[in-house]
């Protein structure tokens, strides 16, 4: 099993390109240096190639499992709880002003 896991064919196609890595990094709000882009492209490729083994499984008509345990209807009643107050709410804020979290200007 382990041996199989590590077996990657030499001539397989690229699973993810550098441009896609750049796009994904942007979606995830990460900056990558040029050398990091190279490194991550190659590592992500290895990992995604490994995922290919999932395609061996016929999953026609199989329900996806989204939770480890099947539960439903977990509710709370509409009853007010004390809020924590501004000091604790803003206590960890890197920047705040006038009871608000302050951020660089949002442009709409």
């Amino acid at each position: 099993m382990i041996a199989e896991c590590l077996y990657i064919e030499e001539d397989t196609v690229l699973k993810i390109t550098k441009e896609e890595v750049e796009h994904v990094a942007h979606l995830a709000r990460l900056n990558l240096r040029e050398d990091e882009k190279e490194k991550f492209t190659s590592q992500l490729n290895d990992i995604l190639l490994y995922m290919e083994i999932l395609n061996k499984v016929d999953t026609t008509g199989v329900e996806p499992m989204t939770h480890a345990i099947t539960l439903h209807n977990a509710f709370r009643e509409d009853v007010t709880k004390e809020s924590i107050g501004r000091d604790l709410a803003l206590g960890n804020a890197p920047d705040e002003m006038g009871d608000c979290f302050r951020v660089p200007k949002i442009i709409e």
Partner: protein
Amino acid sequence: MELNQLTIHELQKKLKNSETTSVEITEAVFKRIEAVDDKIHSFVTLMKDEAFEEAREADKEIQRGNGGPLTGIPIALKDIMCTKGTRTTCGSHILENFIPPYDSTVVKRLRDAGAVFIGKTNMDEFAMGSSTETSYFGVTKNPWDLEKIPGGSSGGSAAAVAADQCIASLGSDTGGSIRQPAALCGIVGMKPTYGRVSRFGLVAFASSLDQIGPFTKDVEDCAIMLNAIAGYDPNDSTSVHADIPDYTEYVSKSIEGWTVGIPKEYFIEGIDPEVLSAVEAAIKEVEHMGAQCKEISLPHSEYCVAIYYVIAPSEASSNLARYDGVRYGFRSDAGRDLMDMYKMSRSAGFGDEVKRRIMIGTHALSSGYYDAYYKKASQVRTLLRKDFDEAFRTCDAILTPSTPTPAFNIGEKMDDPLQMYLCDVFTISCNLAGIPGISVPCGYTEAGLPIGVQFLTGHFEEGKLIQIASAYEKNATLERRRATI
């Protein structure tokens, strides 16, 4: 024996008989931490002042005759469980200074049970890793051999128990993060059924897989810890409304007549021969105790790692989006605009492994790839769960190695993420299926490194899990050693 070397149940007797006090035990524990933690680095944050305050309080309670099984017992917490007023870092730069304004449910429960919290333990950043090497706060070392990793991601909690820096600890297990380090550190570690222990206040890595569980010196202690933390929590919608038995009643019970499944997919080439022979010996021991061991098949086992490394990063990519430098956590000052602020804060705040997983997960969920990765993996997960349902129709428990190899060298797998991921090959299925699992020591390599055997049972059958683990622990002819540090 020093006080810090004893188990919960041993100390409990001493406390009850006024042979010692919680303050004395706490002193012994901190003495040990001061002596060895420079070398091991189990802890990120110590809570010495609070600990002694709690210990004094516990002693008063015990004097009044009110103490429970955990009253006055020094316990360490993986630094992923929120502690009101004490920073909770998740081993990350991005949460280096985060002080939660609330307690996680497990912390509240242990507090109510009278436990003494001594500190927060080191871990792989956001629990992403199998070696406790990805922490922003440095590497934790294996108390049996300081050149080796302690396993991960709850390496600090495992090392702290193995090195007698605390009596017991809590970890979290998403793909083996309790059982794998327990095996590599020669102690007991359990991941309960998903939904058995509240996740409220556990900083999320992969929400459909994460579960909190104990590290202890023996199985009886594991049952005591589980008694304290298990149970329904209205703050966690995925926690299960079900009666919790007294797990200590399963300790020392016979497993005669049980059927124990040995999945053939877990015994194939690639396992370290010393691990293999230790686990094979364990199978014989179990048979010797009157259980019947039979080969079974879990046909989708070979897909575990692939399923896991799609689902866990997908959930993580979303769970870790909140670290944006707005409300808490690290913010880079260098950003000129909002986009810059986001990217620079997150890039400087997260380590490589976290970034890698965020990117895998973002990719797996992104438009055009969702069906091929996330959905496909979730479907195969259904099939994997069915394998276990099928197996437990005829088996009381399943026995496997906990890990394919004993503890490896620090730095050995850091440059090869895929190799690192394969360390979890035997522990992941349990999280994917949502069932409980436990790792118990089952021997040593020639070099003196511990080896673990893993038992698995069906959903909510922690009682049976304790029963087989305890039976094995009590009856196996096994040499007991302490970590050599």
